[in-house]
């Protein structure tokens, strides 16, 4: 069980998240893609911290990433609900009121 396998898993998670962000039009699905990408970064942090540095710093970085993800999900939910109340949908293409 080596470092490369974890990095490949992280790359796969990242690409799935990127695909979700690129193709989905529902904002909640885009948020799911962002969560996948954050998880990919966490897998890389933990794998490097375990196999290369042997220190615990990578895990602490991952803890902070999880904190950021939680805050982001809460704010995103609030924004989606506000968007739904305003426009009647949560499609990212519909939220162009500020376009000049």
């Amino acid at each position, binding site marked *: *069980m080596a*470092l*490369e*396998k974890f*990095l*490949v*898993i992280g*790359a*796969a*998670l990242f*690409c*799935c*998240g*990127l*695909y*979700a962000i*690129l*193709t989905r*039009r*529902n904002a*909640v*699905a885009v*948020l*799911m*893609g962002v*969560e*996948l990408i954050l*998880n990919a970064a*966490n*897998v890389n942090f*933990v*794998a*490097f911290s*375990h*196999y*290369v540095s042997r220190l*615990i710093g990578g*895990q*602490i970085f*991952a*803890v*902070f990433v*999880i*904190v*950021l*993800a*939680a*805050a982001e*999900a*809460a*704010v995103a*939910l*609030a924004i*989606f*609900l*506000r968007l*739904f*109340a305003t426009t009647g*949908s*949560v499609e990212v293409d519909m939220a162009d009121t500020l376009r000049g």
Partner: protein
Amino acid sequence: MTGPADLVFYLLAAMTVGSAILVAILPNIIYSAVALLFTFAGVAGLYVLTSADFLAATQILIYVGGILVLIMFAVFLSSRISTVKLSNPGRFRLPAAAVCLGLFGVLSYAAVSTPFPVKPVVSYQASTAEIGELLMTRYLLPFEVASVLLLAALIGAALLSRPEGREDAAPGKEEAR
């Protein structure tokens, strides 16, 4: 290392990556959310395999218990989910798939071909006490900044999700909307 640990690793990897692909391509957003649950659980298992026990527990508690519930709330509250066409139309499927597969190839090649300075001894030891100690000493400033960030997110989310109207509007009036 071979044997049961390898088998567990491959099972977890298959579960994680497979359900992540399902998250990306399933047309129904409810199914995507359920697949996301399995992705998070698989990542927690991978954390266990890299002796990050505290992080695995945190992953289950916060991602599965918190973020996924929030996402489910967002799905149920925000769209007419019964019709897939309305809830989750896609676009740019082919170019996005090409870009993602190409990127995956490049990243995997970089990960496999780079000679990382891997240290030979793999020791599994509990990390919770060390994380707690480091958070209170060396990483105290990021810890405090994170608390300020959480406070700001809390206030922002509460402010954003209030019903529209004047600040001194009566709560009963807001109920009637």
